[in-house]
């Protein structure tokens, strides 16, 4: 990984300044990279952290041998506390992730809040185990006169391996009886080794649209591939 640009803007009237830190990363691994997560620290001339940008996740895509860009922009809210701005330094850490994807299938959509859909679907793949799928319609509030309904899907994912899973993402597609997509939604959690987490995306639709509707569910898991690190000095942005 190389920092290709690290700049800060002229401080504004309220003494704030924006930064731009661009990095290029080469995927030297055998995996296709589907996501990156980065962190950038801003340090003053004495090495004290005076700003940061954290947990910046991006759909970075790179096959083996390809390169991609990421950009972070820690914000400095009080430049007068920094000292010499031209002596600021940045430390950037980035992790790349590979993805495993699979479809869980298509399930009936509940038609009222008293009758959930409970599927005994089970799957064990790689490090994760899924035991059943629970789909429910939320009970409308007493004063809710709209015919809008919330359909929630709860999928518990167990990590039975010893690898930390950065992200397990469940995606829903609500499709009507003619197979047209009404709405999509997704939710995600991390799952540490020997632990579980419940992932619960919801979709919203008019009650009438739910007649004969179904829900398509897929899961993507993201595993860390490689960690990158770079440091560089900031310069003032040229106008």
């Amino acid at each position, binding site marked *: 990984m*190389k920092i290709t*640009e690290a700049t800060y803007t002229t401080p*504004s009237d309220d003494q704030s300044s*924006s930064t*731009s830190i661009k990095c290029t990363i080469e995927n030297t691994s055998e995996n296709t990279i589907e996501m990156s997560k980065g962190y950038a620290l801003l340090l003053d001339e004495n090495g004290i952290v005076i700003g940061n940008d954290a947990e*910046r996740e*991006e759909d970075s895509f*790179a096959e083996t*041998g390809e*390169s991609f860009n990421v950009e972070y922009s820690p914000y400095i809210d009080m430049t007068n506390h920094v000292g010499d701005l031209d002596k600021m330094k940045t430390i950037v850490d980035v992790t790349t992730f590979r993805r495993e994807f699979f479809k869980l299938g298509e399930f009936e959509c509940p038609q009222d809040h008293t009758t959930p859909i409970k599927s005994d679907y089970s799957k064990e793949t790689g490090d994760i185990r899924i035991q059943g799928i629970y789909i429910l319609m939320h009970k409308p509030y007493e004063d809710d006169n709209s015919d809008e309904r919330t359909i929630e899907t709860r999928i518990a994912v167990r990590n039975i391996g010893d690898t930390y899973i950065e992200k397990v993402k469940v995606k829903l597609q609500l499709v009507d009886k003619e197979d047209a997509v009404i709405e999509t939604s997704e939710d995600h959690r991390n799952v540490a080794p020997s632990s579980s987490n419940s992932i619960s995306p919801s979709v919203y639709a008019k009650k009438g649209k739910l007649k004969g509707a179904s829900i398509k569910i897929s899961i993507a898991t993201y595993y860390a591939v490689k960690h990158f690190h770079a440091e560089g000095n900031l310069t003032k942005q040229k106008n």
Partner: protein
Amino acid sequence: MLDKINKILSNYSCNAVSSNSLIFEETKSSIILNINENYTLGETEKYIRNQFKIDIKIFGLIFNNIPSYIKLLDSDSYQKKRFKKTDLEKKIEALSNLNKNTLNSDEDWIIRSLDNLYLKINNKNEKKILKDYLDNLKKVNTNLYNKIKEYMKNKYELIDWF
């Protein structure tokens, strides 16, 4: 209150996340919210932090990682522009950044990445993108251009791009 903020931010295809939204909801609902669309995202975060004494982080709804120097007013178009870029355009941009700053120039890295991309080109549009990159490189870094030309011509006899 976070709902109110997000309702405003959604007009600019943005969303705010706060790690302590519970306190936020309970104590700060009466303060007037006055978000200026000429604020950058960084300034908006600062404004909310000062006004409500709570940290938030703003993300893009179309393109998650949106820089803090983008103005709220421009955030939707910025994200759409990023989203529209093809995979090849993004990768060529990564290589352009590598050779833009001579201190960071890594010729071998650029050559092996280009070689990799060349093998995946399968239509006229993609060929044009790669050729435009090479034409521009010829102007800004002739040495590297010649090095790439020599490498590619030696490896692929039929190449007619140079």
